[in-house]
């Protein structure tokens, strides 16, 4: 169950990106996960939702693109609301 740690790393990356854009708010973060990455998307979603709830990033959403026969584990994009 290392997915909580992975979810925390995702949120760190989101905070860094948002922090670099004054006034911006993250709405959705898009991940790319290969089925050989050793990450269970459902556990990741559980950890992600638990960490986002009541945090500065609420109501950030998670979108996962799941890829066959690959070991990717990347934050691909973030959808932002900017002033």
């Amino acid at each position, binding site marked *: 169950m*290392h997915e909580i740690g*992975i979810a925390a790393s995702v949120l760190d990356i989101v905070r860094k990106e948002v922090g670099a854009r004054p006034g911006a708010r993250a709405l959705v973060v898009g991940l790319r996960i290969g089925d050989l990455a050793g990450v269970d998307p459902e556990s990741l979603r559980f950890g992600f939702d638990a960490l986002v709830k009541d945090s500065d990033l609420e109501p950030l959403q998670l979108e996962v693109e799941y890829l066959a026969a690959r070991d990717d*584990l990347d934050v691909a*994009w973030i*959808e932002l609301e900017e002033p």
Partner: protein
Amino acid sequence: MNSVVPVETKVLNENQRLAMALRERFARAGTLVVNLISSPGSGKTRLLERTLELLPDGVHAAVLTGDIQTDADASRLARFGFPVRQITTGGTCHLDAKMIDRHLEGWDLDELDILFIENVGNLVCPSSYDLGEHAKIVLLSVPEGEEKPLKYPSIFFKSKLILITKADLLPYVPFDLGVARKNARSVNADAEILLVSCQTDEGLGDWMQWLSSRISAG
């Protein structure tokens, strides 16, 4: 105004950065580093005990052994006269590069020919974390069944060597070696596969050869 910003960052970027720094240190020092991964009870500690016993004179080895609780494995491995450190993760199901970095403190890598890392018993989480090792080695023990490579493809995909352990139990349990090899090959066509037993010493010569050829190359 909404906009989609490309990020393209590895989620485990921070671990990856540390792992790359460790890999450079190991390369500079000429230390071969292997990361042993398996489910609990597949024989990682037993294999290390036999390996430390069989290491040729003059080879300087050290062991970092990870467990969620207890220093039982470190006590078992310390009997052989090599430096051993226990990494007690306190609940975390894998080792990461930061833990390795912290537990190397005070060791002179220049004096080490080989560092064994015994990961926490777990076939899933350790596969995601680069520790700066030269090779991940996955152990699959005969009683676990030949389907493990298909059930846990990530770690079999990322390992350079697959050790099928407890070969002495082959006559007693339903385990089809041919199917196990085929399953492993279907996930990772390039990995070497060795069959070993620490009870009968079957295959340990090949395993020691695998290690020593890489030590001298390093």
